[in-house]
């Protein structure tokens, strides 16, 4: 037992040292720099339009797990749900020449992309589903996106732990051909647990970068004034990595 206590003690000392490093300013900037090196390495190793794997219908998982918010607990959302989301609007604004307010019908009038892709949660699990929707690049083009826009911010109807869910990506991921605003999953309207009526698919990143219950898209030059400035709900509240390609 003594040896085990010694080992546990040594372990605790080491872990203690690690948290001291993580709390120091040099340590924490090193930790976020490492995240940036991964993003740069990923971007250097593949072209901007390099695609993630697309699967066949036979590969689709029997269920598509819902995680995080599984519905939106507001009267307004329940009313939308009862009406089949006919009055749902997706606002497109920020650094664009013509701000848009799009109904689901208008979104369905854009050229549609259908892709069977794998969803990887930061926790470790994966599910495969077939998503359909317009490419984000087409919507941004229709809105006349400004060359000053560096990031796209996604606003959502749901709250988690009392905070509004939101997310953001840079223009490389925003304009990627597989980045779509999905309104269908496996040939059906998006289920409530998966983000009805609209959710993003940002296929080169982990699941928390694919916001659900999407209400608005905003083009911005900087993330500093959005939320707590880290670019997303999980980033702001829990220190998750903004670049979730790893």
């Amino acid at each position, binding site marked *: 037992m003594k040896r085990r206590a010694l080992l*546990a003690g040594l*372990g*605790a000392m*080491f*872990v*203690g040292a*690690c*948290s001291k490093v*993580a709390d120091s300013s040099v340590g924490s900037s*090193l*930790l*976020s720099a*490492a*995240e940036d*090196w*991964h*993003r740069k390495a*990923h971007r250097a*190793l*593949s072209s901007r339009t*390099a*695609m*993630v*794997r697309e*699967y066949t219908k036979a*590969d689709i*998982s029997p*269920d598509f*797990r819902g995680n995080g918010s599984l519905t939106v607990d507001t009267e307004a959302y329940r009313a939308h749900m009862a009406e089949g989301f006919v009055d749902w609007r997706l606002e497109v604004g920020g650094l664009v020449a013509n701000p848009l307010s799009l109904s689901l019908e208008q979104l369905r009038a854009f050229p549609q992309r259908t892709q069977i892709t*794998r969803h*990887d*949660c*930061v*926790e*470790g*699990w*994966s*599910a*495969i589903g077939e998503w359909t929707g317009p490419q984000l690049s087409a919507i941004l083009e229709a809105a006349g996106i400004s060359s000053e826009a560096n990031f796209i911010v996604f606003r959502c109807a749901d709250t988690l732990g009392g905070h509004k869910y939101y997310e953001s990506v840079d223009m490389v991921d925003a304009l990627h051909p597989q980045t779509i605003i999905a309104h269908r999953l496996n040939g059906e309207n998006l289920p409530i647990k998966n983000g009805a009526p609209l959710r993003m698919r940002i*296929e*080169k*990143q*982990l699941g928390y970068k694919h916001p659900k219950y999407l209400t608005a898209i905003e083009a911005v030059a900087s993330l500093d004034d959005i939320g707590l400035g880290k670019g997303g709900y*999980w980033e702001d509240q*829990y*220190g*998750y*990595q903004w*670049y*979730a*390609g*790893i």
Partner: protein
Amino acid sequence: MKRHFLSTRIWHWINLVCLVVLFMSGLNISNAHRYLYWGEWGFSPEQAWLAVPRFPGWATIPDYYSLAAARDWHILMAWPFALGLLFMWAAMLVNRHFWRDLRTSPAEWHPRSVGADIRKHLRLDFRHGPGKYNFLQKVSYGLVFAVLLPGMIFTGLAISPGFEAAAPWLVDAFGGRQSARSVHFIFAWGIFAFFVVHVALVLLSGPVRQMRDMITGGKA
């Protein structure tokens, strides 16, 4: 007994720090979803081939559950670990450490000679022949250098969705993303097993001299 190369000594200690941080932060990450699957997908216990126990705080980095902070450490230490291994392989090939000390000869694989080496180990007799390492050492170091350590890097890359666009074949090579994740976990414990045996043998074969030699290089 030949001296340890300076490159070997530097890599050995840097790699130790990397492995400890990667392993302990990895156990924290494992706590986020304690099920392993084969194939491309898997998200609930009934699809799992293994339900992994929850690892206690004293074994994880940080010492409380934080997937975000554990991933910070894992993502950081992956760099010196991967680049260090690349450096060590290059150094081993250039300074002939690999060819001279780690490569096995066909004669060493003869069952009688393998048996003799195992019996020698069981008697805790660590005297060496003319080579730097005996057969079992060569095989275990070979397994670690050629399979387990690079395997951790490749499976790690395969489970990263951002890297997938650069090399989708890597995910296929492991039979799917969840298979790669399972192999990542199995190899991590393979390295842990090597670590335990490695430390035990150092303790049994003159720990003071062994530690000194891995720091100073030892006497020629």
